[in-house]
C-alpha cells in the first residue's frame, strides 16, 4: 500500500534535483525561429534613415487595414519619403504580406512577440514608434 506512494515521491524527489526541461518564461526569453513573424516595423539603413519611399504598396496589400495614413514628401534630392505612417497593431494579423510587397525592404516583421499592452493606444504606432531602434535585435537577412 505504502510502496507505490513512496515510488511516486521518489520520482518527484529525483526531478527536484534535475535541470528543468521547460523554458523558464518570463525569466527566460524564447529564441524565435528565423521566419518568426513579429510585428511589422520600418527598417533603417546604415546611415539611420528610413528605407521607406512611401509607395503605399504595403497599405494596399494589408488585408486587415493595419497600415494606414501614409503621407509622402519630397526631399532635397527630389527623393520621396514618408512623413506620416501608421501601423495599427490592434488590427495587424501578422501575415507578413507587407514585407513581401515592399520593393525596398523597408517594412519587415521583427522578432518581437511580447506585444500585450494595458492601453490600446500604445498599440497604434506612428511613424517614429514604427521605426526600428535597435537594429541588432533584428535578423540579418533583411534584404
Amino acid at each position, binding site marked *: 500500500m505504502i510502496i507505490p506512494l513512496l515510488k511516486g515521491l521518489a520520482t518527484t524527489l529525483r526531478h527536484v534535483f534535475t535541470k528543468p526541461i521547460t523554458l523558464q518564461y518570463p525569466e527566460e526569453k524564447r529564441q524565435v525561429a528565423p521566419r518568426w513573424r513579429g510585428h511589422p516595423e520600418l527598417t533603417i539603413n546604415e546611415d539611420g534613415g528610413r528605407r521607406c519611399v512611401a*509607395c503605399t504598396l504595403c497599405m494596399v496589400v494589408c488585408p486587415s487595414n493595419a497600415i494606414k495614413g501614409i503621407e509622402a*514628401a519630397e526631399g532635397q534630392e527630389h527623393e*520621396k519619403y514618408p512623413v506620416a505612417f501608421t501601423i495599427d497593431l490592434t488590427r495587424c494579423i501578422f501575415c507578413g504580406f507587407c514585407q513581401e510587397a515592399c*520593393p525596398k525592404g523597408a517594412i519587415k516583421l521583427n522578432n518581437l512577440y511580447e506585444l500585450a499592452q494595458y492601453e490600446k493606444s500604445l498599440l497604434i504606432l506612428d511613424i517614429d514608434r514604427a521605426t526600428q531602434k535597435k537594429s541588432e535585435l533584428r535578423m540579418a537577412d533583411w534584404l
Partner: protein
Amino acid sequence: MVNLTIDGRAIQATKGQTILEVADANGIFIPRLCYHPALKPIGACRICVVEVKPGPPRPLPACATPVNEGMEVVTNSERVLKIREELMKLVLINHALECPICDKGGECELQDLTHALGVDQVDLEAVKLAPNHDYESLFVERHPDRCVTCGRCVHVCRDHVGAMAINFMHRGYFTELGSGQLPLDCEFCGSCIDICPVGALINKLWKYRARAWEVEKTETVCPFCGGGCTYELHTKNDRILRVRNEKSILLCSRGRFGFPVVEAPDRLKTPLIKENGEFREASWDEALDLVAAKFKEVAENAGPNAIYGVGSARATNEANYLFQKFFRQGLGSNQVDNPGRYTYIRALRGLASVFGVPQVSGVEASSAALLPYHSPLKLGAEAQGSGFPFVLGHFDDLPKADLVLVLGADVTPEMPPLGWKLLRALDNENCRLVLANPRRTKFDRYAHVSLRYKPGTERILLAGLLKAFLADNPEWTPAISATGLEELKESLKKVGPKEVSQKTGVDDALIKETAALLAQAQAPAILCGTELLAQDKGEQNVQALADLFLLIGKPGIPGSAVYPVAEKNNSRGVCEAGVMAEHLPGYAHLDEAAGGTPLPEMLDKLEAGDPAAPQALYLLGGDLLRAVPHRSRTEKVLKKAGFIVVQDAFLTDTAKLAQVVLPVTVHAEQEGTFISSDGTLGVLAQAIPAPGVRPDWQIINQLGEKMGYKLGAGHPQQIFRELAQSVPLWAGLSPKASYPLMPGTVSGTFIPFDVDLSLPGRRPYTLIVGKALNHSGTFTTHAPDGTLKLMSEATLQLNPEDAQNLGLSNGETAKVISSQGEVSLPVALAPEMPAGVVFLAEHFAEPPVHLLTLNSNLVRVTIQKG
C-alpha cells in the same frame, strides 16, 4: 461596310476605321503603347503589330492600318507575340525602375503592358544614358530616363495645343525628349503630362501627394472660361489633388493648374456685416435677418423697384434663376441684370437685332420619368425654332468650317477650347483662316490672311469687307432669307474708297483678297471675342459682323455659324436663366415699360441721384469695380447705393463697399449646371465639402423664406426642372448635349451700322485692355499657387521700338496716364504689339486697370517712365 475577320471572328466595320479601332469595338485586345484615341495614329512603338492577309509578308501596325474588305487579321500568332516581347525588352532596356516613387505607378501603361505581355526579364544591355532630369520648369517635371519615345506629347503639343514647345532630340537609342531650352517656356497647359503613357512627364502639383488608385474622381465642369470643358477632379481626404480630362486629355493651364484657388486662404468662411466701417464676422441667421429686414424696409418705403439685383456669370443657372425669381416673383420687380451687359449681352443683342429673338414652337411636355438635369420638355414632331440661337455654332462643328474669320479675339487666351477646335478646322487643307486683330496673336502663324487693323476700327474694316464683297459679287443673294440688303448697300456708300485702308491701316489688296475668300467659302464661320464686345459700341460691332454673316453665312451647313466668345463659365447661362433687364428665362421678352433698368443705366441713375435710382443692391458675385470701365466713377456711384449685399467667395473690391457679405461655394463644392458658350449643358458635381459657406441658391432661398416668399427651392435638380420648363429653347436638353436641338429656320434683316471711329482723344498710345492666357477674370488671382506662378502680376505689353523711344526696358516701371486716371506698372517688351498700341491684362487687383478706361476696353494713353 467592310467585312473582315480578326482571329477568325467575322466582323463588320466601317470603312476608314483602323484595325485597332475595330478590334477595340469588338472586345479584342491588341497590346499598344504609343496609340491614344485622342490622337492620330503615331505608329512609333510597333507593339500593336498584327499579321494581315492579304498584305505584305511583314506584320503591320494595327493602329495605322485601315481595314479592307476580306481582310484576315491575326493578332496573336507566335511571330507577332515574339516581336512584341522583343520590342518590350528594347523599351525596357534602361527604363528607370522607379515605380515605387513614380507618380504614374498604378496608372502606367508600360506597367500594364509589361504585365499583359508577361515580360519579366530583359536579357539585353545598353549603355546607360545621363538622366537629364528637368526639375526647374514650372508645373512639369521631366524624367527622360522613363521616356519610351512614343511621341504622344510631341503630337499633342504640336497638333492639338499648337504650342510646339517640345520635340525629340537626337536619334535612335539616344532619342530624348527636349524643349531646346531649360526651363520650359510654353503655354503650360500640361496636356503632355496626361497624354504621357509613363512617368516621363510629371505634374508637379500632383507629385508625391497620392497614388493613382487612392483618389476619388468627380466629373464636373471647368469654371475658368466659357468653353465648358468637362473634367475630373481627383480628390483625397477632401482636397483636390489634380484635374484630368480623361477623354480628350486637353485642358488649359488654368483648367489644369488653377484648382488651388479653392483652398485660397483669403476665401470668406463666414458672413460679414459692416459696423462702423469695419467688417465683423456674423452668423448666417444674423446676416440673413439683417438683409431681409433692410430689403423689407426699402421695399416698403420706396417700392420694390428700389432694390436692384446683379446676377453673376460665375454662378450656376439654378442660382441665377432663383435670383431673378426672388426679384420678379418675391419682390415683384424686374430690376435685375448681369455684368455681361458690358460684354456678352452686346453680342446677344447685336445678333438678335439682325436674326431676331428666339421663337420656338411644337415643344411638348415630356411624359417620361425625368432624369436629373434633363429638360422636362421634349421636341414634338413639328418642333421648329428661329432666331439668333440658330446661328450660334457648336464647338464640335467648327472643324467642319472651310473659312474661319476671327475678328477682335485672341482666341487661345479668351477661350482655349475654341483654339483647339480652330486647330482641328485647320487640319482640313482647304480651310482658310482670316485673322483680324490689332496685335499678332498665336494663330497668326496659321493664318492665310492677317488683317492688322488699328484698334477701334472694326466696323470700318467690316464695312470695307462688305463693300469689297458686294463690289465683286453685285448679284449675290444670301443663302439666308434676308431683307434690307439695299439699305445696307446704301449706307455703305458713305464709306469712301480710300477711307477704309486709311483709317484701319489695312491694305486694300488684303481686304479684296479676304472678300474673295469669303465669296468662295462653302461653310464660313465667324469668331469674335471680348476685345470687340467690350468696346462701347460692341453691340454695333456685332451688328456689323452679323450683317456679314447674314450675307455669306450658310447656317444649314455644319460649321457655318457665329462663335461669340462668352468670357465666363456661365456668361450664356445667366442670360438664358433670365437675369436680364429685358428678358425673362429663355429670352421671353418683356416690353419696354415692364422691363428692368439695364446695369449701365442703373449706374447712371445712381450717379444722377435720380429718384428712381435703387436704394439697395443685391450683387450675386461679380466684382463690378474690376469689371466695369471707369472704375473711379463706378466706385463713387456704388457708394451712393444705401445698402449693398454681396454674395461672393472672396472679399472683392466691390464686396468691400458692401454692408453684408455672404460667402458662397465655388464650382467644386456645389451641384448645378452651366451653359457653355456653345450652348452645352455642363453639370457640376460636388467633389469636396464646404464648411461654413453655402451655395448661392440656398442663400437666396433662405433669404426668400425670411422675407416671406415661397421660392420653393429644395435642390438644384428641382430648380433646373423649373427653369427648363420655362425655356422651350432647351427642349430635349440633357447633360453634355448642346441646344437648340430642334430644326431651325434662320432669317434676318440687314442693319446699317455707323462707321465712326470709337476711340476719341489725342494721346499717342492706344491701350487695349484684354485677357491673359493664365487667368480667368479675377477668380484665379487669389490662388496660393496654380496659374499665379505663371503670371503673378500685370505687365504693360509694349512694342520694343516704342519702349526704346520712351527709354523703357523690360521690367522697368511705366506710368500710364489717360484722361480718367493713371496707373504704374512694369513693362514687358512684346514684339507682337504693333507700334503705338499697348496691351494690359485686366485680371489683377493691382494696378486697377479700369482706372484708365472710360466706357470701353480701348483708351488713348500717354506713357512715361515712372
